[in-house]
């Protein structure tokens, strides 16, 4: 029997939305306040959904300790209390929440092997959230 397990985490970070492919005026028009050169920050919340058969011996899709350890080391340590624009991942990509959501998904997909990665859902504020499931459709 296959179950989907979702775990929720938080981190805070700053960013500035600015694209080198646009003029100053176009950047201001496209990103508005988010283009402020000094940046601004958010409390991001994100959910990781993994799936797999429920192991008869443990009753688990995967051990939560393994997922928590991976997320703490690879995601919360990397992004928590950082300026996203200064990180390697956002040298060439604008640190929008779309791109951050995709980046978190890709880190998990590359490194977390204890269960199948279904989806990452990222909340920038309580009003905005983004979901990414790679090539797959997001399941409801």
């Amino acid at each position, binding site marked *: 029997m296959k179950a989907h397990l*979702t775990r929720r985490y938080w981190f805070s970070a700053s960013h500035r939305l600015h694209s080198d492919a646009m003029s100053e005026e176009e950047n201001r028009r496209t990103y508005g306040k988010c283009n402020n050169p000094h940046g601004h920050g958010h409390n991001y919340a994100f959910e990781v959904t993994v799936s797999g058969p429920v192991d008869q011996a443990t*009753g688990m*899709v995967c051990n939560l300790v393994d997922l928590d350890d991976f997320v703490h080391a690879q995601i919360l340590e990397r992004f928590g209390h950082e300026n996203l624009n200064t990180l390697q991942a956002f040298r060439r990509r604008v640190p929008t929440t779309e791109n951050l959501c995709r980046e978190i998904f890709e880190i998990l997909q590359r490194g977390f092997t204890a269960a199948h990665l279904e989806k990452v859902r990222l909340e920038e504020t309580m009003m905005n959230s983004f979901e990414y499931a790679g090539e797959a459709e997001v399941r409801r």
Partner: protein
Amino acid sequence: MVYLTRKAEFSASHYYHNPQFTAEENRRIFGKCNNPNGHGHNYTLEVTVKGEVDPRSGFVVDLKQLKEILNREVLDALDHRFLNKEVPEFATRIPTTENIAISVWQRLQSRLERAQLHRVRVYETPDLFVDYYGE
């Protein structure tokens, strides 16, 4: 197709232990959850059913009936119980959030008439939940 979700809450205690593991393995795999005296959670349950809207009633499912079934088959059995000791399926199955979601699905599935069960979601805490789609 319309999807309808009904929410419910129950509080219960449990612990994780597999008698086929050694005491040391149980401690290593299950950590604090292996304490044999148990610990508890306020669980939140979301049951989603799907179906076509009945043209006469305008309902996918009679919510009053769904609520009764949910109360009788699930909440009466799980609420304020020690799951390992008082709920028959958890005598042989570890009452993890995964297995609770499966159990809720199995308890409801055969009782629903018109609507089809789509998803059972069980929150153990606000930052941990499991979805089961009957697969």
